[in-house]
């Protein structure tokens, strides 16, 4: 018994240390973004908010933030719509080529980013599509789709088929049933998918780096700033804000995802 407790506490210690390792780089940006000094090292000089205050004056950053918001919103909407229909098909119907199709939509997860980025750049240029926010959106829908499909699949997994049949029996047509029965029940899943795919797009760098041309997204802008030590504190402040924002979105998405499973169990 004694040895068992010892193993238990050993593993627990390891798990806690691992959490420190996971959170160390994430906590660092906010910590030093309040530091009153341009060198990122201990000891911390003092508390300041000036790095945050300066962010508002940087028009290029605000432009790239705006670009990222556009790209993220459109990519989230398109990938969630595609994912919604595909997931519905995978969960509800059996058809030839289903497994192939399910495998195919997961493919973007396992192709190295640099290959996706370089090959898409060559394709878009070849068909006369100049690098712009449009090409970034096309690329981001591609990499966000696996996330949308898996979230929507789990939303439909918990969905009780007999509800739709009841709606049909009561005289509702296909579109009416989808709008009034299916959609409300899976809507928490949709919200969760929108938030997650938005975050995927919002944080994505390599594809945007290749495909954005003269319209940088926020990560591309940050990349251009990383090289300048004088800009470091501002970059940290921006990074800390983004971190907080991404984590907030994830927590909201998680809340909706759970609500969707709960709603389905409740019925």
């Amino acid at each position, binding site marked *: 018994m004694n040895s068992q407790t010892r193993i*238990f506490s050993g*593993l*627990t210690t390891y*798990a806690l240390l*691992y*959490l420190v390792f*996971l959170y160390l*780089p*994430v906590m*660092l940006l906010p910590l*030093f973004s309040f530091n009153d000094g341009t*060198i*990122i*090292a201990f*000891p911390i000089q003092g508390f300041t908010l000036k790095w945050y205050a300066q962010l508002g004056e940087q028009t290029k950053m605000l432009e790239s933030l705006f670009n990222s918001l556009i790209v993220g919103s459109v990519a989230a909407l398109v990938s969630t719509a*595609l994912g919604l*229909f*595909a997931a519905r098909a*995978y969960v509800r*119907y*059996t*058809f*030839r080529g*289903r497994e192939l*199709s399910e495998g*195919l*939509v997961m*493919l973007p*997860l*396992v*192709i*190295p*980013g*640099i*290959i*996706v980025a*370089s*090959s*898409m750049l*060559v*394709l878009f240029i070849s068909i006369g599509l100049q690098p712009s926010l449009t090409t970034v959106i*096309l690329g981001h*829908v*591609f990499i966000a*789709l696996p996330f949308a499909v898996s979230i929507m699949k789990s939303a439909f997994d918990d969905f009780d088929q007999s509800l739709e049949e009841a709606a049909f029996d009561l005289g509702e047509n296909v579109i009416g049933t989808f709008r009034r029965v299916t959609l409300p029940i899976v809507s928490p899943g949709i919200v969760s998918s929108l938030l997650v795919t938005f*975050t995927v797009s*919002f*944080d994505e*760098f390599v594809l945007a780096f*290749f495909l954005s041309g003269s319209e940088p997204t926020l*990560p591309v802008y*940050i*990349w251009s700033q*990383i090289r300048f030590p004088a800009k470091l504190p501002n*970059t940290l402040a921006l*990074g800390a804000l*983004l*971190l907080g924002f*991404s984590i907030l979105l*994830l927590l909201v998405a998680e809340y909706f995802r759970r609500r969707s499973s709960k709603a389905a169990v409740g019925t």
Partner: protein
Amino acid sequence: MQLRTEASKGMALSAPASLYVGLLVAAPLGILVVYSFWTQSYVDINRTPTWANYQEAIDDPLVRFLMLRSIAIAGCVTIATVLLAYPIAYYIAFRTQKKTLWLLLITIPFWSSYLLRVFSWKLILGFNGVLNSALLSLGLISEPLTFLLYNEFAVVLTLAHAWAPFAILPIYVSLQKIDRSLLEAATDLGAGKIESFIRVTLPLTMPGIVAASLIIFIPTVGDYVTPSLVGGSDGKMIANLIQVQFGAANNWPLGATLSLIAMLSVGFVSIVFVLVMRGVGERIR
């Protein structure tokens, strides 16, 4: 149009997504193949088909070196990430009641920008960085450690951090699936803790380990951000060379060739890995 059968409904609903991915995989790759047989002459592209790029890529020792190093680094990253992650997955599956909380805690950092996390490691590991300054002010070292940043170690550490949830989740799922009565049976039949782990738990989690390894290994070979930020000149990888061809060097045909070679190499190594792991899995049992 009335869709009659269930099957055609399923196909119609899933078609947009699979067509989108299918087209954006096939078309770019097709064009990449075409480009790889063209050559760059100053600002123009010479469209006479030739093997010249492949010849150049094979003859150039730098390409071979970077390709092998990318695969070696990706291999180290995969091993390090899986080894570090396995005990955590085990802990969550068997030793804690708060599974959901732990899974959430592990995925939260992953949702912050990858670029910023890598950047943060650069700040931690630097000569005048966070770690060195902390150790100095604690009096644990008398001068800054120089082996931390701008080498393979920094790349492996940073990526082992970035990929953590991708290793933990598949392994956790495979651990969770294990029928607990099998472990009891092993104990009843006289197997010790270590023996029952090696002969029951480990083989049963092999699918999770293989999935985690592939999910980490394949994208890592083509990683651009981490080698650029923390790799220095000793940690450059093939993606950096590919980016140069599409950027400063402006030699797209060679860039296309390198992308294709990288993809084929990754595919080849992955297939060998899966076959080897299958063999190992059978051997243990």
